[in-house]
């Protein structure tokens, strides 16, 4: 497999019209090999025979339910599995039981959403095998470059090292660059705990982080405070 689009996908749904729609969407998105099953029996056979690289299940099937089928197939293989459900309550079951499904989407769904989520899962599972190791994890903020692998901040006046907590905080902000991250999520990333009791600690760490990455820490350009909510790493990072 050179790209994720070479992945063979199995679609299980009792509605032929939905299968047709899914095939159209997936073909258009670039997935060439899409096979389908209308019930659990067919799905089991095809799974054994064709060894698909990813499966999309409907929950309600004529001869069983998608949850049991998934659990059964999961024992044979670790390929990505995604649920397509027409019932809100399935979401609770999926979350509650922790069945090991990679994702779920409720019907009706937007084709773009399905393709994005599916590609995301496939990439996460197969990309490391497909391509060379990813480029070094780097964040460029003006004249400052942060290397997350080494935890070193390169500035015009030399190198500074990030502490473990600073690293965790900056990484969380970087993963959500351009978006606000609540103080609560930051605290969870760095201390794995609720914000309560950490309010000042968090502020202190942010100040130290600013001292390392900002030109003028008292007038931050990148690591911005969003009053009452949290912090945000500015999206614009032209070198």
């Amino acid at each position, binding site marked *: 497999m050179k790209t994720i689009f070479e992945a063979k996908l199995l679609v299980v749904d009792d509605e032929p019209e939905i299968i047709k729609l899914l095939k159209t969407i997936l073909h258009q998105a670039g997935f060439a090999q899409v096979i389908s099953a209308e019930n659990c029996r067919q799905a089991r056979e095809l799974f054994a025979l064709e060894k698909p690289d990813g499966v999309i299940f409907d929950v309600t099937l004529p001869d069983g339910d998608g949850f049991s089928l998934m659990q059964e197939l999961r024992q044979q293989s670790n390929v990505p599995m995604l649920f397509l459900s027409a*019932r809100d309550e399935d979401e609770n079951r999926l979350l509650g039981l922790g069945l090991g499904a990679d994702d779920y989407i409720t019907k009706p769904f*937007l084709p*773009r959403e399905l393709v994005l989520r599916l590609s995301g899962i496939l990439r996460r599972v197969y990309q490391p095998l497909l391509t060379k190791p990813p480029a070094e994890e780097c964040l460029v903020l003006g004249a400052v470059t942060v290397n997350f692998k080494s935890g070193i901040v390169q500035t015009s006046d030399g190198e500074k090292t990030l502490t473990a907590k600073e690293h965790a905080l900056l990484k969380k902000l970087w993963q959500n660059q351009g978006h606000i991250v609540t103080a609560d999520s930051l605290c969870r990333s760095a201390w794995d705990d609720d914000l309560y009791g950490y309010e000042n600690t968090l502020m202190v760490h942010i100040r130290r982080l600013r001292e390392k990455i900002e030109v003028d820490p008292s007038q931050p350009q990148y690591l911005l405070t969003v009053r009452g909510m*949290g912090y945000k790493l500015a999206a614009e990072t032209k070198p």
Partner: protein
Amino acid sequence: MKSLRKIITRSILLTATIALLLVAINMAFATNWMFKYSGNQPLKYAIADISDGLTNTEGTYALNPSATAMMEEQYVWAMLIGRDGQVIWNKNLPGDIPRHYTLTDVASFSRWYLNDYPVSVWEHPDGLLVLGDPKSSIWKYNITSTEDTISHIPGFLAGFLILNVVAALVLALFLGLWLYRKLKPLYNGITALPKKEPLALPTGGVTGEVARILNETSVILSQQEKQLTHRDQARTEWIAGVSHDIRTPLSMVMGYASELENNLILPAAEQNQARIIRQQSQRIKALISDLNLASKLEYHAQPMELARVSPAALIRGAAVDFINDGLPAPYSLVVDVTEEANGPILLCDQALIRRALTNLIDNSIRHNPRGCAIKLSVIKSTVGLAIKVSDDGKGYPPELIKNSGGLDESLLLGNHGLGLIIVRRIMKIHGGSVVFENLPDGGCAAALVFSS
């Protein structure tokens, strides 16, 4: 069981009080009676006075006027028996009364009767003064008692009183216990009624009829409960089923519309039409999901996952989601919390409260197309904790505010969709409420109030 015990205890005390009261009343009555009627008894002074009024003036006896009056007031006749047994003076002496008496006669009538006349005697300097009452007017009985017996009378009376008290208490206690035994199953049955389960109380004895009625009532209640649950369940399932069935065709509408929308071969106008179809399908999707949630909340089919969370974290999360999803320019969203609200002070289902907040923010956005400033805050009042979503927009329609207390859900539905109904039902299953108000400076606020 506590209240039955209270009832029985009171009834025992009451019965005992009544019994003691009866004893007291009886005693008072008896004492009163004795004093009142024995008042006629001490005639001795009168007799003595009469005796003093009978004087011997040179061999002739005469009763002075005051003594005569006294005598006539109480007696019918009088005679004076001389020392020799001969009647030496008399007044109104009936013919059947002898004129001569022996010692034996005197001993006999002084204790009993003289020819059926009740008589009283008094010692006169010249003999024995005998005064007679009409026949059958006085009952005479002589009591002879030992000194010992007389000296025991006060003790006996006290013992009698104590015995009465003890008997009254014991009987009251016994009656109370008996009542308690009889009423206990009934009491248990009544307290079990709200559980709406069929009862099987024993239907014998004095309380049998009541027990039988209770049993029948419980059967009716449990049947009604079953029917209601069944109906609620059927309704929820029906809505869930319909939603499920709509979602499959809607997937097709949304899927293909979305494909057409992005089909570059189509003219821009057609692409735009496809976009509208896709957008409206998404609205239908949201409506179905709302309808499902609203029905599950109403019929208690929505599982609650209660946890202690920080209300501040909750509103920050909701606000940041809106902002990160791209809140359009004319709208602004701020969070106003104290440090205290960072603590895990709110017991709730986080996902549901998040949903309520989302609905309220959505409502502010939808009803203020020209934009507004939305504020989320946490307030601690005497009633409890409240999360407030306020804006500076055009406010709620007056009828929604007016009826905020006993709000009819049709008002909430208005042109707000199911959003506010869901908010209300979410607060209801949390045991709280939602209060809608218009602010004096314009705009409105909805408070999710959690009772502490």
